[in-house]
């Protein structure tokens, strides 16, 4: 006798059989991730070379002071002195608003050599750290592809990735702060107040939290790798 319960059970059995025949693997995902990170790695190398060329052109003015504008965007933090108004509510009337602690970039026709060198050092540092970080990710993914990922080396790589992430953040924030602070005392524009600090820029904790979380994961991974090693060497 056919009833709905029998049909449902038959579907469940059929699905279980299908799952048994087609186990879910992550091979395709791992290959895709390796491809993406490898592409990103080569893009970073290309950008590093590009940055070196741009910085050489920018620093070239040391030898040719009457050169062209510096092809670099420098970070600035600014606030508008005046309150602005716009009508945008259904109930009518103007809403006053002000722009505070905005972040932007400026192009300069001249900057001191030390200033440009500092910026170049920051850009190079960030690119080099990013290249190392991407290389570590690719190495981890390759061990996952070889199905031998629970290794002490991978735990150390995860730790290094977390530390590099924090290092990139510190370099970026420090240099942006230094550059914005320097520019705030050297450029002016009517109605715009350039500040050396932006609380929204500094109070950006998500990268730090992610890196610290990754440090915890790395330690857990290390313990797991140690347990696996013990298990593998148990006869």
């Amino acid at each position: 006798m056919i009833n709905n319960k029998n049909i449902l059970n038959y579907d469940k059995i059929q699905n279980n059989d299908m799952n048994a025949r087609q186990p879910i693997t992550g091979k395709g995902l791992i290959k895709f991730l390796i491809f993406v990170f490898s592409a990103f790695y080569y893009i970073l190398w290309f950008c590093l070379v590009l940055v070196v060329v741009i910085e050489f052109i920018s620093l070239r003015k040391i030898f040719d002071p009457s050169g062209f504008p510096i092809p670099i965007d420098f970070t600035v933090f600014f606030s508008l002195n005046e309150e602005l108004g716009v009508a945008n509510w259904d109930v009518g009337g103007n809403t006053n608003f002000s722009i505070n602690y905005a972040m932007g970039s400026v192009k300069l026709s001249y900057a001191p050599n030390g200033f440009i060198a500092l910026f170049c050092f920051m850009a190079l540092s960030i690119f080099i750290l990013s290249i190392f970080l991407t290389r570590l990710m690719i190495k981890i993914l390759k061990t996952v592809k070889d199905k031998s990922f629970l290794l002490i080396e991978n735990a150390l790589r995860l730790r290094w990735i977390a530390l590099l992430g924090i290092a990139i953040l510190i370099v970026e924030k420090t240099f942006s702060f230094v550059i914005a602070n320097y520019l705030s005392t050297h450029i002016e524009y009517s109605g715009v107040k350039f500040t050396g600090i932006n609380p929204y820029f500094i109070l950006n904790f998500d990268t730090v939290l992610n890196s610290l979380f990754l440090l915890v994961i790395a330690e857990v991974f290390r313990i797991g790798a140690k347990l696996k090693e013990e298990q593998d060497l148990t006869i």
Partner: protein
Amino acid sequence: MSIIINLDVMLAKRKMSLTELSEKVGITMSNLSILKKGKAKAIRFTTLEMICEVLDCQPADILEYKRD
């Protein structure tokens, strides 16, 4: 390591090869090799029991403690 594995001594006494032992005990050659070289971290009692049964010996014949 403080625990010395004298498996090769017992194999020589019983005139048995490592391959033969691995087939009789049911352990892979690589695992037996790890045990013989003293790189093993632990050995299960069931494995020790099977080795002793095949080699007709006592655990003390295979395992020896030496102070460092």
